[in-house]
């Protein structure tokens, strides 16, 4: 964890002050352009969003000041106020806690040179709003610089800011920059250097009227047709995108397009990864032969890595798509459009972004719930996110569809697939409705969401975001999957002590996993699951995407996760001793019902633990999703039997 993130965390936990010798802290309202400035200063990894509260974590980088001194830069989540009460574990609370530690430090070392500078980034097209926070920061006596960004947009709208007068009226140094320009970095760092060197700066004015100051310093310098068009751009686009009738249809169309594009683009990339992994397995076979070690590395570790790589492209591409929507300003419009629907279920438009992200992977989505200001709503969003159809469910869906429904038409299978997707959304919304009336009931503050102007996303930032998503996924989820895969290999390979195996029966039948799978058959039989499926469910307890590979091991099919067709055939042809089919369509439906609902992802559980600072809620999620999954599987299997489904 970075120092800055450590500080934010320790602040929430009542820990110590920041330890860096010299720190530049970037603060600002959500969507002020703060993260763009951070990226310009550090070339670093912060995301730029055009959606309130996009910088979920405190990001940190390092720069060299013109004086030669090194400085750490911390990019705080967006905040509106340092005076109004907010919950500690929200974006605003994290930023507030960080600043409070800095303020404490100022008190401790009164008279000593400031070792940190707070740079407040303000969007000058909304200057009066930004200056409200400036006034609070001035009252808090923090060493302050104001950086006005979006200089280019201001110019395109035919406006100019009198920077000198603004500095005089608020008593704070002011720099006007454009984050896209190379000169933004030297200009800003020079101002920071000056502020750090100034041992006795005059106190900032804390009693100014933000609206009056804004009126005094922002002037129209052009009224050409081009500037009029620029000013009206957002308004004209909103007239279409937020139209009460056309808007919702466009929204559904855009979302459908995004998800379709994700799968179309991700498929060939996943294929390329499969080829690479096949080459690696071949090399491993040639190098180590067919021993136990080679099997562990190839079927345990490498198989886990293959599972990770197989669906990572979907996550990265969906992240890029969301980033483009966010940075353009459209996601806030999406929140506006769906707020009413989410209110019915006890959430608000603010929960829209995390719920959407949950379709890629629940882990970043759980972090993204920090944009939700209301603690009850945030907790509800966290608790229902594991029900969203994340990318990791898809390999299992594909296998079950191929195994049990290959005789049906492509249209039937497509409809079933879409149905599964929407089942996840439906289940999450129903769960939210119930939770808001039980476990998380209570009054919440309804939606207030700033609607940013439409902006053109910066390609370099989008690329960095994609790389960051890939890195986070490999770190947070990939390691869990590889470890789970290795543990699973052990359980499937090591024989259970005291269990005898029929001569000629596959070795796996005497393994630890198979023995336990058999032991719980009485519980799972009402859902149509035999010991083999139970082993698959064990395998997917840590990471649901391991289901396919595990079933491959059970049925002795190599590389089932890459090529599931032979495994699907084996499942179709599996017979009971009396010759009747072992599994039918209703087994497939029951398995799908279980996978839609059960939280088979230890990384998600860990993320919930991290965000709620308690084991109570991750335990609750495991309990309710598994109970729901089991109940739904039993219901589907039994009702299927009554209806005569095979």
């Amino acid at each position, binding site marked *: 964890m970075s120092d800055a993130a450590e500080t934010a965390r320790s602040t929430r936990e009542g820990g110590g002050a920041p330890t860096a010798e010299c720190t530049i802290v970037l603060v600002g309202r959500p969507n002020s352009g703060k993260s763009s400035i951070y990226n310009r200063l550090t070339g670093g990894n912060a995301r730029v969003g055009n959606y309130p509260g996009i910088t979920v974590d405190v990001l940190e980088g390092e720069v060299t000041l013109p004086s030669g001194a090194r400085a750490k830069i911390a990019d705080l989540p967006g905040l*509106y*106020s340092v*005076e*109004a*009460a*907010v919950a500690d574990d929200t974006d605003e609370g994290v930023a507030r806690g960080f600043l409070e530690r800095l303020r404490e430090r100022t008190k401790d070392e009164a008279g000593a040179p400031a070792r940190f500078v707070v740079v407040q980034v303000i969007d000058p*097209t*909304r*200057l*009066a*709003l930004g200056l*409200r*926070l400036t006034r*609070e920061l001035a009252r808090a006596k923090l060493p302050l610089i104001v950086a006005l960004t979006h200089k280019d947009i201001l110019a395109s709208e035919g406006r100019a800011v009198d920077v000198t007068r603004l500095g005089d009226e608020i008593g704070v140094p002011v720099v006007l920059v454009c984050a896209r320009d190379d000169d933004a970095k030297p200009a800003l760092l020079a101002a920071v250097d000056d502020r750090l060197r100034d041992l006795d700066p005059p106190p900032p004015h804390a009693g100014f009227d*933000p*609206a009056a100051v*804004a009126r005094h310093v922002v002037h129209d310098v052009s009224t050409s047709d081009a500037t009029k068009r620029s000013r009206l751009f957002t*308004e004209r686009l*909103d007239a279409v995108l*937020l139209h*009460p*009738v056309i808007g*919702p249809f466009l929204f559904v169309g855009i979302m459908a397009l995004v998800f379709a594009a994700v799968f179309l683009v991700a498929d060939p990339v996943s294929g390329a990864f499969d080829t690479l992994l096949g080459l690696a397995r071949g090399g491993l076979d040639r190098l180590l032969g067919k021993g136990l070690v080679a099997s562990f590395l190839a079927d345990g570790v490498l198989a886990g890595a293959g599972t990770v790589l197989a669906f990572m492209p979907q996550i990265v591409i969906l992240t890029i798509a969301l980033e483009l929507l966010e940075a353009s300003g459209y996601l*806030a419009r999406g*929140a*506006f*459009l769906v*707020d*009413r629907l989410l*209110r019915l279920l006890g959430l*608000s*438009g603010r929960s829209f972004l995390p719920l959407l992200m949950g379709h890629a992977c629940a882990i970043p989505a759980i972090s993204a719930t920090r944009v939700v200001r209301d603690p009850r709503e945030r907790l509800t969003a966290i608790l229902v996110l594991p029900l969203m159809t994340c990318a990791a469910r898809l390999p299992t869906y594909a296998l079950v569809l191929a195994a049990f429904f290959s005789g049906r038409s492509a249209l039937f299978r497509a409809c079933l697939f879409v149905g599964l997707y929407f089942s996840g959304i439906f289940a999450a919304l129903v769960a939210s409705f119930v939770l808001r009336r039980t476990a998380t009931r209570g009054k919440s*503050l*309804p*939606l*207030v*969401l*700033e*609607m*940013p102007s439409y902006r053109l996303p910066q390609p370099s930032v989008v690329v960095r975001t994609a790389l960051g998503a890939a890195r986070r996924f490999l770190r947070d989820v990939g390691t869990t999957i590889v470890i789970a895969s290795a543990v699973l290999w052990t359980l499937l390979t090591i024989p259970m002590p005291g269990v005898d195996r029929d001569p000629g029966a596959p070795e796996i039948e005497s393994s630890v996993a198979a023995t336990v799978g058999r032991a719980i058959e009485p519980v799972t039989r009402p859902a149509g699951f035999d010991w083999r499926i139970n082993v698959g469910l064990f395998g997917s307890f840590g990471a649901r995407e391991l289901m396919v590979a595990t079933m491959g091991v059970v049925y002795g099919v190599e590389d089932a996760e890459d090529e599931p067709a032979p495994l699907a055939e084996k499942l179709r042809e599996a017979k009971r001793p009396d010759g009747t089919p072992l599994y039918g369509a209703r087994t497939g439906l029951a398995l799908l019902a279980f996978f839609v609902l059960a939280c088979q992802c230890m990384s998600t559980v860990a993320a919930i633990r991290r965000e709620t600072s308690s084991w109570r809620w991750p335990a609750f999620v495991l309990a309710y999703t598994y109970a729901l999954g089991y109940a739904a599987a039993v219901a589907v299997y039994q009702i299927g039997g009554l209806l005569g489904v095979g």
Partner: protein
Amino acid sequence: MVAEAESPIDTSGAPSSLATAAAGSRLRIVAVRLEAGATDWLAAVGLHEGEEVVVLRRAALGGPLHVRTSSGGEFAVARELAEHLEVAPASETGS
């Protein structure tokens, strides 16, 4: 409960709720009927007593209002929250 959608604001100058304001209305917030903490935060966001707002549009089916403030901000405000913002026509209260 939300008052009838799209009903025009009372032009007599008497305060009424922002939730009842029609699209295109230019109004001034005259009171925020919320607990102190929420009122302070809302003020920091940009919606406070004395602020002038224009209702740009109302979302369908009782969804949020899209408003622009005289400070230059644009906000989606849930109808339930708008009910707690008392407004009067901007011309009646001076602007």
